[in-house]
């Protein structure tokens, strides 16, 4: 579980899908990086992830980490966004039998988890069928 300060630091990525793009080789990084692992250069431009993509692979989580226990079973997938970035997130609003590789999905803003009855609420992205 993130502390409020760590959650806060990640807000640009969690809320607005902010990424950065290497000015030299054009690769988009999410979360943003300071040094490009390909060309080792440090010059980036700010960009935002595409909000649509397709499922590359997925699995159903039945035995989840502690803070996700109440959500089980749930689907997690690797999605390739329209800009080529691949990311892992929950896939919701989709019956398990309708999940398939290649399914078109889009990002949606959801509650990722809450820290018990009294802690902060953590928001971010999940995927839903387009």
């Amino acid at each position: 579980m993130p502390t409020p300060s760590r959650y806060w630091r990640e807000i640009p990525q969690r809320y607005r899908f902010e990424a950065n793009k290497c000015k030299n080789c054009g690769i988009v990084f999410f979360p943003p990086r300071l040094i490009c692992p390909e060309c080792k250069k440090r010059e980036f431009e700010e960009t935002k992830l595409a909000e649509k993509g397709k499922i590359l692979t997925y699995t159903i989580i039945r035995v989840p980490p502690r803070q996700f226990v109440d959500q089980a079973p749930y689907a997690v997938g690797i999605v390739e966004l329209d800009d080529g970035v691949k990311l892992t997130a929950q896939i919701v609003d989709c019956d398990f039998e309708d999940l398939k590789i290649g399914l078109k999905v889009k990002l949606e803003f959801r509650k990722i988890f809450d820290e018990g009855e009294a802690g902060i609420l953590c928001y971010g992205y999940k995927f839903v069928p387009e």
Partner: protein
Amino acid sequence: MEGIIGYGAYIPRNRIKVEEIAKVWGADAPSYKRGLMLEEKSVPSPDQDTITMSVEASKRALKRSLINPADIGAVYIGSESHPYAVKPSGTVLAEAIGATPEVHTADFEFACKAGTEGMFVALSLVKAGEVKYGLAVGADTSQGAPGDALEYSAAAGAAAFIFGRDNIIAKALETYSYTTDTPDFWRREYQYYPQHGGRFTGDPAYFKHIVGAGKGIMEKAGMKPSDFNYVIFHQPNGKFPFRVGKMLGFEREQIEPGWLVNKLGNTYSASSPLGLTASLDISEPGDKILIVSYGSGAGSDAFIFEVTERIEKVRDLAPKTRELLEKNKNYLEYGEYAKFRKKIKKAV
């Protein structure tokens, strides 16, 4: 002239039918369905709340407005189900759409009228020239106590409106508010479910305030019921909007396009605002729309809008409200619904 430059709606996919709730409490479903003119209602998933629905509705409003979110100077969420008791909902929304940090943000509360309250203030700030654009959202994930009549109707949804001065899709011709102190519905601090005054929620509350605001705004604008193509009243159940419409001299045909409650339930702060989005979805340039909200406690906000030619350019840029109401539905059984709404809790 000032008015709406973008609008967006959000409705969760889960539904529960009146029969499913009635079965649990031994109530007679047909008489509830007839009495409330209600078939089913929307239910939020555990990962949806007023904040998440506000973000999605606002992103759709942004798509239709075609503006830079950084130019939004006011962000307001009206709700009676803000997820935090202390900590604003609006800051998450402002951050998620990219309106921070140069933005005025506030959460509004006034039972089911909180959404139009935010609209009233956002529009007024644009009129005053204090902000270039103002965003106002009505959103709720409301709860009725198990077995209470409210349980059949309390639903979830959000509607967002961006106000501005250029590229308007609906001019704001007139506004009017009608408020008195009337204790028809309340919830005290630390109470989970609201209390209400039963039949007292009708005549001295809903009907008096909507009729007061409806008459008041038409008089102020020099207009009569037949001048309007669409009229939207707050929708706590299916019957009230038609009854109050009749009292004010409106026809069924003017009310029906924005009447969503039979398949949606009462989305509280989003109720009349969602009706407005559904009416804008099908309106033509020149159409006149009257919307009158109602919030227990009690008060009504009224607005008259005139649709412009720009509606045809932007309405297809985001999903339409009636499509959202019909698409990808997931029917819940009462047990699942009770778990989703935390009416039952698991052992720790």
